[in-house]
């Protein structure tokens, strides 16, 4: 199933110079799991907005986008290249990195306990200082309905994450910020299983480090 999704993604992006293909490939598995887990009132925030192609492929798989819409990606009147508020399941526009976790905190504080908020972060995105401001806020307010999923693909725009700006020790960083941290292989089935287990984990915000092998073929 996942390979057919990847095929669709590659086909869609072949028209546009493989626009953010690498980060979309590793994000596919995460989004597939999250969208399968998402309850009606839950919110998904794609903080790494450049993985919009993966999001659209999942939406089409779920029947919310037609193939025709999918092939309109980044066309002037087509699907926007980064997710935009107003699209199905999109509560907030992204594209600028580092803001999704703060926004999630706001939603969580405004509607505590009523809903879960899934935030998908890139590992490169963690360079943004605001992520860590927000990580402090989530734990300060014990927002255990926040689930951050880090797409740990070891790549960022210009190279390997550890050469560009070290992320490790990543687990310890999140733990030090007061989060409950889980590591998982970047496979939809494994992630989904973990997401269900996390429903029982209370008292702290939760971070999932979803580890993939780097793909690194972004067309930018």
């Amino acid at each position, binding site marked *: 199933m996942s390979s057919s999704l990847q095929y669709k993604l590659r086909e869609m992006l072949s028209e546009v110079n493989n626009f953010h293909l690498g980060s979309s490939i590793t994000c596919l598995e995460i989004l597939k799991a999250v969208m399968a887990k998402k309850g009606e009132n839950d919110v998904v925030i794609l903080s790494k907005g450049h993985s919009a192609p993966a999001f659209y492929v999942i939406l089409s798989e779920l029947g919310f986008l037609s193939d025709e819409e999918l092939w309109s990606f980044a066309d002037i009147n087509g699907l926007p290249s980064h997710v935009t508020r107003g699209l199905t399941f999109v509560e907030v*526009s992204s594209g600028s990195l580092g803001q999704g976790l*703060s*926004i999630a*905190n706001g939603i*969580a504080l*405004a*509607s505590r306990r009523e809903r879960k908020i899934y935030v998908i972060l890139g590992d490169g995105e963690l360079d943004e200082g*605001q992520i860590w*401001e927000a990580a402090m*806020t989530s734990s300060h307010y014990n927002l255990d309905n926040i689930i951050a999923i880090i797409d740990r693909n070891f790549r960022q725009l210009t190279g390997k994450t550890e050469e560009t700006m070290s992320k490790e020790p990543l687990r310890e960083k999140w733990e030090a910020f007061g989060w409950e941290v889980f590591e998982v292989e970047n496979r939809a089935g494994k992630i989904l299983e973990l997401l269900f287990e996390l429903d029982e984990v209370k008292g702290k915000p939760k971070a999932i480090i979803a580890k993939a092998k780097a793909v690194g073929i972004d067309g930018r």
Partner: protein
Amino acid sequence: MVGKTIESFREAFGRALVEIGKENENVVVLDADVKSSTKTIYFEKTFPDRFFQLGISEQDLVSTAAGFAIAGRVPVASAFAAFMMRAWEQIRNTIARDNLNVKIVTTHSGFSDFMDGSSHQCLEDIALMRTLPNMGVIVPADAYATRTLLRQIIENEGPFYMRLGRDHAVRVYDDEELEIGKAEILREGEDIFLIACGPMVPIALEAAERLRDLSVGVADFHTIKPMDEGTLLKIAKKANLIVTLEEHSIFGGLGGAVAEVLGEKMPKRVIRIGTRDFGRSSRSYLTLLDFYGLSAEKVVKRVAEAVGR
């Protein structure tokens, strides 16, 4: 008494927020560890469950406020003007772009934080906010205008930036009905019109009085955006000289906005009074205003020179 009584912008803001909070339980307030200075502390004391401390992190503050708006609340995000501007990109990309119902209210703008010097004296925020699509920009002239316009930005859907000073709010209004988007003509004049915003409004009134052998009008353009073009063009039709006054850079602020409209629709000589540089520390607000040519005395001199007096 108008023109004599000195009130405080931040006191007016803090007290008004509590009153509004009593009527509208959807209003929440977010702070970046300056509540005792911005006076949002009054709101916290009255509604502890609707007050959220984000710590010294303006970027997180602004984006968290966006989350509250997405969830249907009416967030008021408040901090010092200078430091709120470090979150300009967050304001642009999330609040303005998604047209979210966030109210950004800053204090300590202009020279009002006289002691703290150039790092704290925000002279660029009107320009930075005015350029953003969807964003309304409001600069109240006194404590009364602060109260009434704050209520209106909260009642009106959409993002607003409200710029306040710290203290030293010279009273301009008694109980006039101010309306966002509508400029107030405070004094009629034929030859020269002083168009001001914020704390420069009472200074414009004083300058006009001192220039009374000329016919000098005064208008309060508390809403920089959307600009009241109708009133502006009406003023420009009769006046030979327009003078803008703001506690802000002359580049991109009120003066810029006025010149843009007139340049395109009714070319007229416009003198922009404001700043061209960063501020500096001073032991008194009024000394600082005078140093930068913004006292009534300096304004009078500048206008008199411009008309060859």
